[in-house]
């Protein structure tokens, strides 16, 4: 008797874990996104032809570019934070500050890049 232990994705996301849980989720999405992107991209170049053209069309779409850029940039910046803190556990006490810095680097960079991509896409 009793309710089972499963935690649905929604319930999990609703847990008020604050900043760090968010970075964990975004890092995971970023990694997954890039993994899918790189694989399809390589496949596309390899296959060529119609399938290749189709896949190329997807990733050359500007919205997809913004998404991938988000994945790459966030994953890279957050990954650097994780790496540094993991290799020097003493610094983990300052993870809040680290995450602040991370956002401070990420948001403007991503913002400018997204703007550039969008403008290029719309302008060209």
């Amino acid at each position, binding site marked *: *008797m*009793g*309710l*089972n*232990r499963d*935690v649905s994705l929604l*319930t*999990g996301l*609703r*847990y*008020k*874990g*604050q900043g*760090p*849980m968010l970075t*964990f*989720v975004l*890092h*995971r999405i970023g990694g997954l996104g890039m993994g899918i992107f790189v694989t399809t991209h390589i496949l596309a170049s390899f296959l060529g032809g119609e399938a290749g053209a189709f896949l190329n069309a997807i990733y050359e779409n500007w919205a997809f570019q913004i998404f991938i850029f988000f994945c790459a940039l966030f994953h890279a910046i957050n990954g650097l934070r*994780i790496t540094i*803190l*993991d*290799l020097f*556990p*003493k610094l*983990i*006490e300052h*993870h809040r500050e680290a995450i602040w810095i991370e956002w401070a680097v990420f948001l403007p960079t991503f913002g400018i890049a997204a703007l550039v991509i969008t403008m290029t896409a719309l302008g060209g």
Partner: protein
Amino acid sequence: MEITIKIFRYNPEKDKRGHYEVYHVEGDENDRVLDILEYIKGNHDGTLSFRRSCAHGVCGSDAIRINGRNMLACKTLVRDVGEKITVEPVLGLKIVKDLIVDMEPFFDNYKHVLPYFINNSPLPEDGRERLQSPEDRARFDETTKCILCACCTTSCPSYWANGNYYGPASIVTAHRFIFDSRDEAAAERLQILSETDGIARCHTAYNCTEACPREIKITKVIGEVKMAMVTGKLD
């Protein structure tokens, strides 16, 4: 002031699934959430069930989710969470009744990491204590504080996904012994934690650290154990 408290209710003998019940009670901002639960049990609904004992945050009985985050009901005051309160059982363990969850899997995980002092060398000849410098003692002080409340493990996304993960609380206990200069079984514990359901399942989500009522910096502690695995350094 009037406190509005929404409580998750589940009666295993009647209900197929849980529901929420809202109560309005008169309270003070210095009341513990536990006091409110006791009051409701005494005056509104005697069937409301939850665990508690010490009422001041040292026994680890009453880990619950308050306003979406794991806390001890006895260590959370109304002034910390406001007059609108939602109380739910912790996640990732089977709900047995109302706010009571099945703690067995949690303790099974705890038992997995050899949670006891191991030293097979002969005792000092004079029969006195094994010596330990204050610095060596301080090395693992933080992790001796754990009260096994499970606030951490049940806030961990990795544990929600996979109940076989030993969970942060077990790693905290392992840390307490791994870094105790008198203990001799660090190697065994590190081997155990290096299993796939061990420390590899931690992705530094920090929910555990935020939830720990004893303010153990759990993610840091886990990081230290990981580095001990890589470098072999125990001090």
